[in-house]
């Protein structure tokens, strides 16, 4: 046994990655130490000229009022979309934002500390999603303020470009173009900048040029924001928070709401930077027919069926309506294709993407039913043969992004194999669909459902989810490719 232990130890030691450790200079830590000991944020940094500008801006921000315009706050560089959206495609996943659809709502909420009010805008995407974006409003534009830690505290207003924040607060509109996207309160930085990104990513306060160091914001630099759209038939939103209760009338045809609260003590101190606040408002939406429901928290599955929104994704399909011949071919060397998920039922590995040509299976079929929105998708599943000293019967699961596929369109799924062992590769093409949901990000349910199904994890498929076999295929590979 001891010799076996020594073998294992030797193998581990031999595998130790050799790295060139060049830690950052201690000055970096010293800066963090200074910062952690200095308490509240230091808005005033940099040259005297910058400080003067910041002082002016801070003075301006203390003025109350709703008519914030260019005369009071200069515009700074706009906030650009994140890299993910630079790569977005019109027919993939959520699609791309359509700038012409951008609508800034007239709804405003005063900030607890004064200054430009909070507002919101809605933008549609090429795949039928509607995304809500909140921020500070100046001159009818939604953006962020150069105060506190944002934008080197330049005292300017930084409008969000049309695609900024898209993907964070999106839901599929119904056939009538109505949106229901209701969320409980989230923690945001008072400057509004955290709303331009993943809200879990930047509700922390950074020194200039130090993005995402994870320094937690003082509570005074945080807000609790609740915003959403309740559809055309919502009549009021009841709000209960810190011993106060009041009603809000939904705004406009979208039934929009927007609430800004000071962040309560204890906000943003959870294990994640930007974690949910310990105490949040309870929001109850009331509809024209007298029904009401709680606005769900971030991970709450409680659902209700409001009026005015059609949550159906159309009539349920049958396997016969989807059945179509599926073809598969093998190519020894081809580059591209999404790396598949590999699972043996207990363990799963996502192989890193590679640009190197290698063996692939190409699955093709003609889709009888289209996938116009991220509410339905096709996927391929392959069982690999059990070959001694090879794969041991694991499964490959295609990870194609959800695509817009027209009815009758020929679909091609390329599955990189990394390596092959001889034998029979059998599989099938599956169709997944979900109905719209009150839950924001319903397309995640679709993809999550596919993952769980393919990983063999418990999957309580609800009435609003479908999983059907489109067709089966098999191919014999005569040679190993290792």
């Amino acid at each position, binding site marked *: 046994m001891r010799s076996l232990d020594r073998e294992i130890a030797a193998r581990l030691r031999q*595998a130790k990655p050799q790295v060139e450790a*060049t830690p950052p200079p201690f000055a*970096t*830590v*010293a800066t963090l130490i200074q910062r952690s000991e200095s308490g509240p944020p230091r808005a005033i940094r940099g040259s005297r000229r910058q400080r003067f500008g910041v002082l002016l801006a801070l003075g301006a921000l203390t003025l109350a009022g709703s008519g914030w315009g260019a005369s009071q706050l200069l515009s700074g560089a706009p906030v650009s979309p994140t890299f993910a959206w630079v790569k977005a495609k019109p027919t993939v996943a959520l699609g791309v934002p359509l700038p012409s659809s951008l609508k800034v709502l007239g709804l405003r909420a005063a900030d607890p500390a004064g200054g430009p009010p909070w507002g919101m805008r809605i933008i549609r995407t090429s795949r039928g999603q509607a995304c809500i974006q909140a921020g500070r409003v100046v001159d009818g534009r939604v953006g962020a303020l150069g105060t506190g830690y944002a934008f080197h505290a330049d005292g300017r207003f930084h409008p969000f470009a049309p695609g900024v924040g898209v993907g964070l607060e999106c839901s599929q509109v119904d056939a009538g173009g109505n949106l229901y996207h209701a969320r409980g309160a989230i923690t945001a930085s008072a400057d509004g900048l955290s709303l331009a990104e993943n809200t879990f990513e930047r509700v922390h306060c950074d020194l200039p040029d130090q993005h995402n160091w994870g320094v937690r914001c003082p509570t005074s630099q945080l807000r609790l924001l609740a915003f959403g759209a309740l559809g055309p038939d919502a009549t009021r939103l009841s709000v209960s928070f810190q011993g106060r209760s009041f009603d809000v009338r939904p705004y406009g045809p979208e039934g929009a709401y927007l609430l800004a609260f000071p962040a309560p003590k204890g906000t943003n101190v959870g294990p*994640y930077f930007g974690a949910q606040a310990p105490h949040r408002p309870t929001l109850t939406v009331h509809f024209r027919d007298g029904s009401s429901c709680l606005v769900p928290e971030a991970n709450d599955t409680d659902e209700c069926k409001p009026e005015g929104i059609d949550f159906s994704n159309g009539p349920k399909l049958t396997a016969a309506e989807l059945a179509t011949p599926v073809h598969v071919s093998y190519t020894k060397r081809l580059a591209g294709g999404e790396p598949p998920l590999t699972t043996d039922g207990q363990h799963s590995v996502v192989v890193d993407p590679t640009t190197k040509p290698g063996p692939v299976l190409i699955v093709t079929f003609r889709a009888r039913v289209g996938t116009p929105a991220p509410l339905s998708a096709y996927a391929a599943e392959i069982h690999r043969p059990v070959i001694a000293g090879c794969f041991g019967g694991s499964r490959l699961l295609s990870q194609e992004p959800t695509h817009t596929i027209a009815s009758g369109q020929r679909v091609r799924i390329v599955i990189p194999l990394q390596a092959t062992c001889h034998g029979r590769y059998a599989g099938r093409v599956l169709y997944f669909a979900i109905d719209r949901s009150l839950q924001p990000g319903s397309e995640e349910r679709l993809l999550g459902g596919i*993952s769980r199904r393919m990983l063999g994890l418990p999957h309580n498929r609800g009435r609003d989810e479908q999983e059907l076999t489109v067709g089966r295929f098999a191919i014999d590979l005569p040679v190993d490719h*290792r």
Partner: protein
Amino acid sequence: MVDMSSDEVQAIARLYEAHAAAIHAYALRRSDRDSADEVTARVFLVAWRRRASIPADALPWLYGVARKVLSEERRGASRRGALSRRLGGTPAGAAEQLPEIADTALTAALAQLSSLDREALLLRYWEELSPEQVALALGCSKATLAVRLHRARARLRRALAAKPETEHACAAGAKS
């Protein structure tokens, strides 16, 4: 304002000089360079905040902090990843990132261990800590650690034996 010439800051500076490279290497073996820089700085910020309770043998304690900071960093990245998956349409379900090593069969076998078992082995054989130091880093007793290490080695051996060649092993030998 902290007096940077104070004895307390200088003590942290000496600690940094002595151990920053080891912590940075530890983080580099488990993340990218940017994250490793950040993790290293944050570990010593934690050391500053808890300067009153740093044990005499500080290195295992620093590894323990680094492990937690790295874990926190991964959780943040995982949430960011959730967004990119959502945007890119890739199903969720990514596992904890494992160190990149050439012995891919070993990677696959390590992946089958629990996070604590894996960490115990890697602290012992990669960071070359003594069993006592690994126990300090993981916050368990020496006896518990001895049992954990023994079982972890056995599990790793079984995992390697169960799959003498994995897909990765095949891929590593690919002629293409």
